[in-house]
């Protein structure tokens, strides 16, 4: 290294200032997250236990646990993804692998992008009109799941398309050149090498579906529903159910004299499950990227 000259010293000083500012900006992003999580855990600590997860709410939701809303959220998320994933993935495969660039695919792509930006309360009203009233499903888990599916579908399509597009065109052409059909090419070369991206996109929708309140509030979720404790299949498809996000809203604002730890405990469970699912997606991505084949 050369000896420092006045010029390098001056430059070093301004570099230090810039670095400090950027570091402070980054810290401002991370700090609130840490604060929120630690504050939630601190407030919820007295109530967190396995019984809190597995007990149903009691005494007008002022005591007991969160089994019914937790189970309801799981139902809604799983059913909505079971509906949205195959449709979304197949639509993306069609758009990316089969459809030719023309006005129709341009319209569809535009619709997908715009649908992803529709506010969730609008999805709620659509779900109410289409599934609850028009399709006569009533306020039910099925109607709410369908509404969530409509909401997650465009994002699944977009992320799947991106994953498919990351497989180089040269691989497809090489397959076509040796007489493979489009489907054989997709099945043996394109899908195996994009499945990680597809799964990551789907998993990330779990947290979105679990966190939303508006779309399910009009279409299938209620303030309170009594279910038997500890039973896994406590809800039917056409039942109404409770959900974590809605439950959090209810006990924080609608029910008087709720012990403070209860809403914090609910928030911790909601937040942890979302973070856990996201961590799963990251782990899957890291694992599959390590096995990337080119």
């Amino acid at each position, binding site marked *: 290294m050369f000896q420092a000259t006045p010029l390098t010293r001056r430059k070093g000083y301004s570099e230090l200032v810039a670095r400090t500012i950027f570091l402070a900006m980054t810290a401002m992003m991370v700090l609130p997250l840490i604060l929120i999580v630690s504050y939630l855990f601190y407030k919820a600590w007295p109530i967190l236990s396995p019984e809190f997860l597995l007990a149903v709410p009691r005494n007008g939701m002022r005591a007991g646990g969160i089994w019914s809303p937790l189970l309801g959220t799981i139902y809604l998320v799983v059913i909505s993804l079971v509906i949205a994933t195959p449709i979304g993935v197949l639509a993306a495969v069609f758009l990316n692998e089969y459809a030719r660039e023309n006005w129709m695919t341009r319209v569809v792509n535009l619709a997908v992008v715009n649908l992803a930006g529709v506010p969730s309360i609008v999805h709620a009203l659509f779900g109410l009109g289409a599934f609850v009233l028009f399709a006569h499903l009533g306020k039910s888990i099925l109607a709410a799941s369908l509404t969530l599916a409509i909401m997650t579908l465009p994002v699944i399509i977009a992320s799947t398309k991106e994953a498919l597009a990351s497989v180089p065109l040269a691989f497809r*052409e090489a397959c076509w*050149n040796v007489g493979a059909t489009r489907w054989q090419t997709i099945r043996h070369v394109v899908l195996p090498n994009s499945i990680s991206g597809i799964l990551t996109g789907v998993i990330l929708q779990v947290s979105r579906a679990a966190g939303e309140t508006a779309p399910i509030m009009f279409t299938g979720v209620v303030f309170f529903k009594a279910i038997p404790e500890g039973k896994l299949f406590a809800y039917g498809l056409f039942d109404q159910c409770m959900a974590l996000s809605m439950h959090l809203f209810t006990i924080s604002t609608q029910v008087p004299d709720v012990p403070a730890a209860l809403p914090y405990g609910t928030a911790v469970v909601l937040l942890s499950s979302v973070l856990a699912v996201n961590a799963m997606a990251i782990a899957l991505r890291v694992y599959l990227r390590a096995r990337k084949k080119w």
Partner: protein
Amino acid sequence: MSDGKIDFVDLRVRYGRREALKGVTFDVRRHEILGIIGPAQSGKTTLLRTINRTIDDVPGAVVSGAVRVDGEDVRLAPDLYGLRRKIGMVAPLPVGLPLSIFDNVAFAPRMAGIRNRHDLEGRVEQCLRQAALWEEVKDRLDSLGTKLSGGQQQRLTIARALSHDPEVLCLDEFSIAIDPVTTMRIEDVLRDLRSRMTIILVTNLVQQARRLADRTAFLLNGNLVEVDRTDVIFSEQPASRKTYEYVNGIFG
């Protein structure tokens, strides 16, 4: 009637407004090496894509005229995938599929319905030997084809192109991404294959056509300037002055 003969009859291809081929008529004879030379944008790659109809996958490409493989118009081919298996196609950049070396070569036979492990193993070994790659990879057939070096991947690509037992082998500027030593090895491979199949060699290296080709066609801006015996094309007196100027580096 499988003799690996190709006729181009007044072949025209447009990409939107741009005419890539402007009415090209010539033939490729059984078991010859036909060199196709010409500067960039002269329609060489487009010509190859019409033979196995991968031109169909190019958005906006409009083809008129005819291409006949063994006398059959490719447009009327009852089985497009069968037609493609008659043609081996090697792209300019080496493409190892993200599969094992074995699966790279076994891919086409499998897609055509061959499931017997013994048959597949025989086919894979034969094709890798023909492509002069067997000795280098025989102990690691399970490793990824994409992890091979560029020159090895190009020979893997050739092995894959041979794996469906084609009558015609088309190579599109196969040497642009590989070193001269590997290029020479592949040229030896092509000399060996000549007795078994027709070879169309599109190249941007005129000397490569001179070394290998029985006849050479010169394409310029989508027109066929001339096609003749290679020694005539590279002589002092080819039919067209343009040909003389191109092969001697006066333009291009």
